[in-house]
């Protein structure tokens, strides 16, 4: 889908962008001007096409990245490759990442303008940045998203968007408060489950009674021993709001392991496979069943000879199973013989997949496909599941109050204390 060369078509343009970055003038101009690309959604007018001449500096979205490790590099590449984006800065707690990233970006634009930061607060303080993408470990997501909104930035935040149940509504509230476009970052929700999505929205399954999601494992408490610090990393900043632990390369590895070899495995930084892949699979299931705007009212814990699994009960009668024995991923039980009226499937806006959807919405102020609220609702399933498995019991969830019903211990797990001085 990427239709751009990714290269500036005119060096003079790049220079003028850099000039415009000195203050809020360019940004205010962009907001006030009603850029040419602002217009009809979902469709690609000549002015919105990536292969058109590069938009004028004042029409580009000025972006920066926070947390540029494995996933961040991929996200960064997608934004950097767009000619309607000017990528000007990045922040990472690893010096090597900062250096490598700056070299890449400067090489891309053939200049030396990319600024690097070790502290996100300095980056967010810049008035000239319109939007940031966030790909830090999950324990930083809520603080960064909320602070970015407070700074008037739009945000593309990698999945899983939240680490705790309480973070979600606070992130949504911050986005709505300041009218920010905040997109979550699961491209798979739209792209991986089309085989189920299309017939489901066409009404071919009839009323969907249940859908199964196979995903895991649960996160584990990290108790890895101390290692010598063999990388240039700001360890206190990497830990941030998470509890203190000694440096260990596996503790902070950004590899995709969910089995003990990366931060994705550990409960202080992640919800484990439940959130890491659950953000995709639960997201796919809720999209297929058109319950992205809802949260379940109950999670039923099953433990018998067949194994342990969950049933999430939705207010509209749908059940989402988790790891139900002998069930495939996204296996649907519909209503045989029933055909429902078809509904149009929501698609990405703009061009260029989920990244393009975000950029389009930054320009038009529309709601992105994985609006933060939908990302949050998806993560709620994973968090409720983690808590039910940990407590080994069924739970009732009051979505309006964001509390468990009559379960003191479960309610104590809705959030967690943040290490000083961090706070939402």
């Amino acid at each position, binding site marked *: 889908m990427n239709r751009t060369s990714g290269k500036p078509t005119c060096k003079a343009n790049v220079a003028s962008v850099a000039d415009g970055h000195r203050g809020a003038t360019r940004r205010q101009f962009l907001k006030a001007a009603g850029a040419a690309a602002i*217009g009809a*959604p979902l469709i690609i007018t000549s002015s919105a096409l990536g292969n058109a001449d590069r938009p004028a500096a004042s029409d580009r979205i000025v972006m920066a990245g926070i947390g540029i490790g494995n996933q961040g590099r991929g996200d960064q590449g997608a934004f950097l490759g767009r000619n309607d984006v000017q990528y000007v800065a990045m922040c990472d707690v690893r010096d090597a990442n900062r250096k490598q990233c700056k070299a890449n970006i400067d090489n891309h634009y053939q200049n030396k303008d990319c600024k690097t930061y070790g502290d996100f607060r300095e980056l967010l303080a810049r008035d000239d940045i319109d939007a940031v993408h966030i790909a830090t470990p999950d324990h930083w997501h809520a603080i960064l998203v909320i602070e970015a909104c407070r700074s008037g930035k739009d945000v593309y935040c990698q999945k899983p968007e939240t680490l705790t149940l309480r973070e979600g509504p606070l992130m949504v509230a911050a986005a709505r408060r300041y009218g920010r476009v905040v997109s979550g970052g699961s491209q798979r929700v739209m792209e991986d489950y089309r085989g189920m999505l299309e017939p489901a929205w*066409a009404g*071919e399954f009839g009323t969907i009674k249940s859908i199964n999601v196979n995903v895991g494992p649960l996160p584990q408490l990290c108790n890895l021993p101390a290692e010598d610090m063999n990388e240039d990393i700001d360890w206190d900043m990497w830990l941030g709001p998470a509890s203190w632990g000694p440096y260990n390369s596996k503790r902070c590895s950004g590899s995709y392991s969910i089995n003990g070899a990366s931060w994705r495995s550990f409960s202080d930084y992640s919800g484990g496979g439940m959130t890491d892949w659950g953000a995709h699979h639960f997201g796919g299931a809720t999209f297929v069943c058109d319950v992205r705007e809802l949260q379940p009212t109950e999670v039923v814990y099953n433990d018998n000879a067949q194994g342990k699994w969950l049933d999430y009960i939705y207010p509209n009668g749908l059940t989402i199973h988790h790891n139900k024995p002998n069930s495939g991923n996204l296996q649907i039980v519909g209503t045989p013989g029933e055909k429902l009226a*078809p509904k149009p499937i929501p698609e990405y806006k703009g061009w260029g997949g989920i990244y393009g959807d975000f950029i389009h919405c930054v320009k038009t102020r529309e709601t992105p496909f994985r609006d933060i609220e939908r990302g949050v609702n998806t993560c709620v399933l994973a968090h409720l599941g983690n808590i039910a498995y940990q407590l080994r019991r069924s739970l009732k969830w009051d979505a309006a109050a964001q509390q468990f019903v009559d379960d003191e211990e479960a309610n104590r797990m809705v959030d967690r204390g943040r290490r000083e001085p961090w706070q939402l």
Partner: protein
Amino acid sequence: MFRRSVSFLMLLALCAIPRIAGADASSDLVEQIVKLLSNPDREFRAAGLEKVRTSAKGAAQTQAFAAQLPKLDDSARAALITALGDRGDAAARPAVLEQLGSTNEDVRAAALVALGEIGSASDLAVLLKSLTSASGAEQQAARIALTRMRDATLVKTIAAESKSAGPQLRGKLIEVLAARRATGELDAIIAATTDSDGGVRTIAMNALGQIGKPDQLAAMLPGVLKAEKGRERDNAERNVAEVCKRIDNEDQRGAALISALGTIDAGQRDELMPLIGRVGGRRLIKFVADIATGDDASRRSVGIDALGKWPDASSADTLLEIASKAKDAAVRRQAFLAFVKVCANRDDRNDQQRLERMKQALKEARTTEEKIAVINRTRTAYDVESMRLVRPFLDQPEYCQAACETIVELAHQRQIRDPNKAEFDSVLDQVIKLTDNKELIERANRYKRGETWERKR
């Protein structure tokens, strides 16, 4: 401090005096929203648009918002039209229809899309016209609108139209039917698979690949035969295979295809052998293997070719047997290369299983060409051992280039490169010294630096 708090609480108390709820509140809200719609700051405007989408329900309110359209600049106008579409109140339709005459492409396109939400059957003519005669953006907008319109009778009209329209419109209408998953109109789509226009045929086959059912398998085969050999035929075969996949049971899938083949003249069935390969499955292996090893030499090649198109490695042993027993060098070559190809398929096997197959192939390879094929295909087994298998060939000039390419491809896989960084750095250094291929050198250097590389599409 205390006095300030008290005064603020008093202010709050004053504001707490109840207001007249209902109509006044609604008109206040409409006034608030309308004021924002012309705000020069798009983020303030967006706040108003958000409420247009969701609040102040009622036809009068909708008309109040729509009445602002002529007062706005093009950008704000297009955004308001979109919001009115999302609002879904047909009271905005007359105002939106007027905007189809705008001189601005964005505005016209937004109006077309909005008709998908608030239009009626009487707007069909304008949408059909826009599908082919307007700008690219408007064509796309009309397609979206036709896909989204909720009128249940629409698909019948579109299907009927698709039979008489010109080729360009015909194709677009079939795309709309597919996007709407109009499974009740499959006959119209099937008819189009043998259309005189190649573009229409391809669109129809794609549509069936998207929404066709196994019941339509036999009806799709004439379309495969009608498709020109090459890209169109490949595409047609892929779509039939997609429909076959909707039968979960492998044996039943094979039986369904064999049954469908029975409806085709025997003389044309061999033309469909590659299709059988794409579908795969145990039952079909035997069906094709009989042809590949049969008495008719002209049919043997077709059979081997089909086995080489298998979607997984289940035809590998059959192909190796044919290659091993072949007396004819050409048959041997064809069967062995097909064997290597299926062994390398990235199917449900894990990388170790794929690697074991490549080791087996390397042992069985007799010629330089066969060994090069194995070295090349080893890149699909993402395992550090694959690199170790191929590395010694860097020292042999006839295999060196293939080995360089495979090693760089394997290095692209971060999950095997990172845990074995020192070893990969060393072998990539060798590649950099040995190859003249600039892209390989650039990639090798990037991987050594821990960077990735974006494959050109």
